[in-house]
């Protein structure tokens, strides 16, 4: 009589998989209404957040003191904030309603030099836009990149452009030259790719099957992932062709993230499941993880070399996982649930709406429907 359980490989104990975040170190108080999105800057010292009050705020990460804020909209929520990769320039992107903004927050590393470089990077496309008009492509132009007006310019906002529907997702290419946006209600214009140096907006995915949910650039190859409600398609950007149709089996995908190695991705769903895909193995999930009682809204890998990923749920908690991708092709990733982080209050059925990882440390931040952000260390 052999107990079948004893034949299963033993999961390592969370204690042996330290470090990972275990407690709330700092709360960020100030937003009126839900915080929709947040992101830690590339240096790891500043936290940007945006929410239903129409403001983008920047905080000192360790202390929780607010150092900068701008009101982008009076009536629209800020749905997403994302920093441009790199430290040579400081550019924070955000979307409020249908408008996308690029800004240079007044933080301490914005020296006169960095401020000049930041403006240079954001302004490089003005000349190109003029050429664009001459070459008669203007009638095809999806949108016009403009200066945001003197009030916002005085606050450090550099550029604005409008899309046709509410923008919910911004995702940057690692080199900081391209970023993509998603307007889930946008149908043929749901996914847009923007070229910063040319102030150029293109709509490369005219025939998506179903409403777009999220997008990601591959961390090292010219591959682009587009999630619709049920599928994730990967495209070769240089050859302009479809590579794979990934089938998580979720009824409604909320978000996904690509592992820094590029061969694995993790998908979150409104139907409470988290799905790990090994792209070399199959288009079906390698592992299905059910740890939440409510919808999962976001999932992210640690990007700084630690084998960690985490998700954020409407049940008010974050679940931290160990997720180690093994170099050996014959061995599969090891995934171990490590810790549930609780603290956010649930407001009107909404819990934790976004999360991000610190670029180096085993720390994450979360954005709550309760109006707070939290740093977990």
């Amino acid at each position, binding site marked *: 009589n052999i107990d079948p359980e004893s034949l299963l490989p033993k999961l390592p104990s969370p204690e042996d998989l330290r*470090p990972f975040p275990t*407690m*709330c*170190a*700092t*709360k*960020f*108080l100030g937003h009126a209404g839900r915080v929709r999105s947040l992101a830690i800057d590339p*240096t*790891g*010292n500043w936290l940007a957040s945006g929410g239903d009050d129409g403001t983008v705020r920047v905080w000192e990460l*360790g*202390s*929780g*003191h607010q*150092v*900068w804020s701008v009101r982008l909209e009076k009536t629209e929520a800020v749905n997403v904030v994302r920093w441009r990769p790199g430290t040579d320039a400081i550019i924070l992107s955000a979307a409020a309603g249908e408008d996308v903004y690029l800004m240079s927050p*007044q*933080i*301490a*590393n*914005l*020296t*006169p*030099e*960095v*401020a*000049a470089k930041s403006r240079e990077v954001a302004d490089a496309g003005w000349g190109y836009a003029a050429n664009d008009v001459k070459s008669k492509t203007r009638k095809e132009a999806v949108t016009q990149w403009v200066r945001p007006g003197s009030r916002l310019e*005085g606050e*450090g906002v550099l550029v604005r452009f409008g899309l046709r529907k509410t923008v919910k997702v911004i995702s940057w290419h690692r080199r900081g030259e391209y970023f993509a946006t998603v307007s889930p209600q946008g149908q043929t214009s749901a996914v847009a790719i923007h070229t910063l140096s040319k102030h150029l907006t293109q709509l490369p995915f005219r025939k998506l099957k179903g409403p777009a949910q999220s997008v990601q650039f591959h961390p090292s190859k010219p591959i682009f992932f587009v999630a619709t409600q049920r599928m994730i398609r990967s495209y070769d950007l240089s050859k302009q062709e479809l590579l794979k149709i990934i089938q998580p089996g979720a009824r409604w995908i909320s978000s996904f993230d690509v592992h820094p190695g590029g061969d694995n991705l993790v998908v979150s769903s409104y139907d409470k499941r988290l799905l790990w895909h090994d792209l070399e193995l199959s288009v079906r999930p390698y592992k299905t993880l059910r740890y939440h009682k409510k919808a999962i809204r976001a999932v992210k890998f640690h990007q700084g070399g630690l084998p960690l990923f985490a998700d954020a749920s409407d049940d008010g908690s974050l679940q931290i996982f160990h997720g180690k991708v093994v170099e050996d092709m014959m061995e599969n990733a090891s995934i171990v649930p490590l810790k549930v982080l609780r*603290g956010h209050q649930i407001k009107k059925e909404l819990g934790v709406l976004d999360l991000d990882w610190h670029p*180096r*440390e085993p720390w994450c931040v979360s954005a709550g429907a309760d109006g*707070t952000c*939290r*740093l977990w*260390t």
Partner: protein
Amino acid sequence: MAESQIRIQLSTRYPDISLRENPGPIVVNTSLRRYALSTLVNTLLESEKPVPFEFLINGTFLRTSLDEYLTANGISSETTLAVEYVRAIIPPLYLASFEHDDWVCSVDVLSETSPAASGTGNAAFKPGQERIISGCYDGVLRVWNMSSEIIAIASTSREGGPISALKSVKFLSPTQIATCGMDRVIRMWDYTEDAENLTASLTPRLELYGHRNVIASVAVHQPSSRILSASWDHTVGIWSSKASDAPPAPGELLPSHRGSKRHKSEPSINPQRGPLAILRSHTAAVTDTIFTPNDHTVAYSVSQDHTLKTWDIPTSTCVDTRSTTAVLNATVSMPALNLVAVGGTARNVTLIDPRDSATSVSAMTLRGHKGWVWSLASDPDSAYGLVSGSADGTCRVWDVRSSTTDKSGKVGTSVYSIERESAKGETLRREGGDGVQVFGVCWDQKVGIVSASEDKRVQINRGQGIFGGNPV
């Protein structure tokens, strides 16, 4: 059952509590604990008012009965036990709070016993004129008297400009103050009081440019006119507090630089100067730096890269690096013990022996904080004492002789914990951001433990006769 007995030899290094005649070895029951021993010493001293004492055996406080101590340490009751006694630390009492308009980052004290008053070549300190300076997130430097009154104030923030939180404020001498913070500038101020010491003026004297990010901390050494700075730009700066000794300021970092058209400012009337040296070796933000107390040619720095570095100032070289397991926020030296204390996001204080001969990274860990450690200061009365300020809203007072040993090595527990008066009576555990983080702490012999907090207050606590006098 016959009670076992042991001979003890009592001694102290504090003249004011020493026994007039050496009583020689005294036979006592091994069941005695600290309190009974304290009563014994008070009887021998013929004290009118009993003084609480602590007892040190082999460098560690007695925390059990003598019997349990002998058993735990495998010592025979036949031996004569050398027992040293010191005054017990009396819980620091709350004295006052100074209210600010925003979170307070940093504090420093000027008193007859503070380092800045012992400098040479400056106006002598007047006893009874103790001063506290505070650096605040609103960019304002405030000078306080002990009656909670602001007697001088100066702002570093510009209208419409970025936040210029003052991360660190230090008296260089009774008439000079150094400040730094989020505006990337170290400022030297002349501080002068009127004849009646009722009001005072703060005059900007020198602006030092060279860092490219937040300057988290300055350290000052008045006799050599040297200033050290710790910056989030990953470097440590060495500067002169004298404009005549300092090189020109790097033009690209000045606010008048062509790039910064958004906040055009008038050409500054204060002299602007640059660094004597910028020390590069850390790989993340530097958060604190200090001179070694006995040798101003050696500096220590701690960083978000988890390391403590030792620097040789004359040659601007990093001579030693010690790695820990977490981000470090603060450091203080314990020169008599050849130790450097560091604190950070691991929520503890680690004591490190930075000498070449040291074999282990950590000599001891001080545990008890429930939040990040933001700030450290040494006990002015004891070579064994220090205080830490934490995000958990407490200042903890430590005596490194109060320790136990577990599987991770020597572990110290705090002898006292100072709560925020602003949160008194609350039983809910406070988390960072709930209003009580302690960002800065200073411990002066005369004034006491002065702490700066997210509760927008500077709080003063004083332990009466902590360790009383200096050991000989």
